[in-house]
């Protein structure tokens, strides 16, 4: 009798343990997916802003047609992609676009009229904001991925992971120049 009770208690504890680990996997996986869609939202936002930017810059600087074309081309390429289908490739194109935009901003410094225009300043804030959000949501994605992968590797949660055929997520590569050290002013 006593042995039976102990056996039942042990089985119940095992089930509770199993369920909590399984739910832990699901929660973390949802966080990974949520942060991926967060990145998609930001990419979309940037894509929406770019035509405006191109038009504004066009009006002030006649000589940057090449850079603008490149921005537009990358934008259009990115429009057909998303994080769910191919995260690595999407981020790669997104990084290229970030770089091109950065060089566009650098060239814009040479046009005082453009820099002074309220339209351009507003666009700059919006784009800076979106670029930052892309970087931060990528950081969030990577830390969620790390949490999920850790569960898959660590004992005993790896046993549960194996039973349900969970697979590891891949980290998103952070471009080397993405987080350059800022100037320190004294």
């Amino acid at each position, binding site marked *: 009798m006593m042995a039976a009770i102990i056996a039942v208690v042990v089985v119940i504890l095992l089930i509770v343990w199993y369920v909590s680990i399984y739910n832990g996997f699901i929660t973390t996986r949802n966080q990974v997916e949520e942060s991926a869609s967060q990145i998609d939202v930001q990419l979309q936002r940037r894509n929406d802003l770019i035509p405006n930017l191109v038009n504004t810059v066009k009006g002030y600087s006649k000589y940057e047609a090449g850079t603008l074309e490149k921005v537009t081309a990358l934008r259009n390429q990115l429009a057909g992609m998303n994080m769910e289908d191919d995260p690595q490739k999407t981020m790669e194109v997104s990084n290229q676009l970030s770089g091109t935009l950065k060089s566009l901003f650098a060239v814009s410094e040479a046009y005082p009229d453009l820099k002074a225009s309220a339209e351009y300043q507003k666009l700059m804030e919006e784009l800076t904001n979106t670029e930052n959000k892309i970087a931060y949501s990528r950081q969030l994605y990577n830390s969620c991925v790390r949490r999920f992968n850790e569960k898959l590797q660590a004992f005993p949660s790896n046993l549960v992971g194996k039973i349900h055929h969970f697979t590891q997520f891949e980290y998103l590569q952070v471009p080397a120049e993405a987080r350059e050290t800022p100037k*320190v*002013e004294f």
Partner: protein
Amino acid sequence: MLYQQINMNKRRTVYVVFGFCLLVALVGAAVGYWLAGSTVVGIIMALVIALIYVSVMIGQSTDVVMNMNHAHEIHSAAESPELWHVVEDMAMVAQVPMPRVFIIDDPSPNAFATGNDPEHSAVAATTGLMQMMNREELEGVMGHEITHVRNYDIRLQTIALALSAAISFLVNLVSNFWWLGGGRSDDDDDRGVNIFGMLASLLLIILAPLAAAIAQMALSRNREYLADAGSVELTRNPQGMISALRKLEHAEPMQQADPSSASLYITDPEENAKRHRWLDHLFDTHPPLEDRIARLEEM
């Protein structure tokens, strides 16, 4: 690391609250001994007073705190795009809900956070902060505030503050009573004079407010270091935080800050740039900025 820190903080909250309650009970016992000749009555009275203090201060709404600091709320990114967007970024990467955002019209750069849990939090920044800081520095400062929110620092701080207020209330009660010439005299003590008990309770009444203040400030300083580290964990950019703190080092004192909110701010709003001797540090709500910068530089 992150979650360990949060759990450690929650555990520490329990210890601190327990320690403070013990101190409140001891002071209550001493006060009861002097006023009513009964330690039990004193303890009950003290705990009831402490409970009232804590519930009043925990219940104090964000709006009251913001009013006391002359802060006005902004409701959309359009009103202050950079601040709004930076707070949005930090909340996203810290995985807490977007807090309410307030602005204080004060040329001195400073910021604080309030709210008992991440669902009811608010952050405030001064106009001086927004003028003086570039985006990376602003990220550092707001990351610090969001870390306070995420770590439940504000609730811990509020409870500690309420309990030390309760202790000073009790001690004031006794000293007023002594002032009026009341208290226990030798002839109403039939059980014989307990010199040891008298001395011990006297000592307790004198030292308890001091102990409470020192403990509360030490706790507050510890939170600041943690929030600096947490901010860097969010922004991955120690340089931004360091240069923000360097700018705060030379700041003027604030005009709009409410003294009872001092420990909430990122730097002490009243004595921003003052230097202290070693002993004075015991009562500081914030560690010296040089030390905070030094710790960040080691990261």
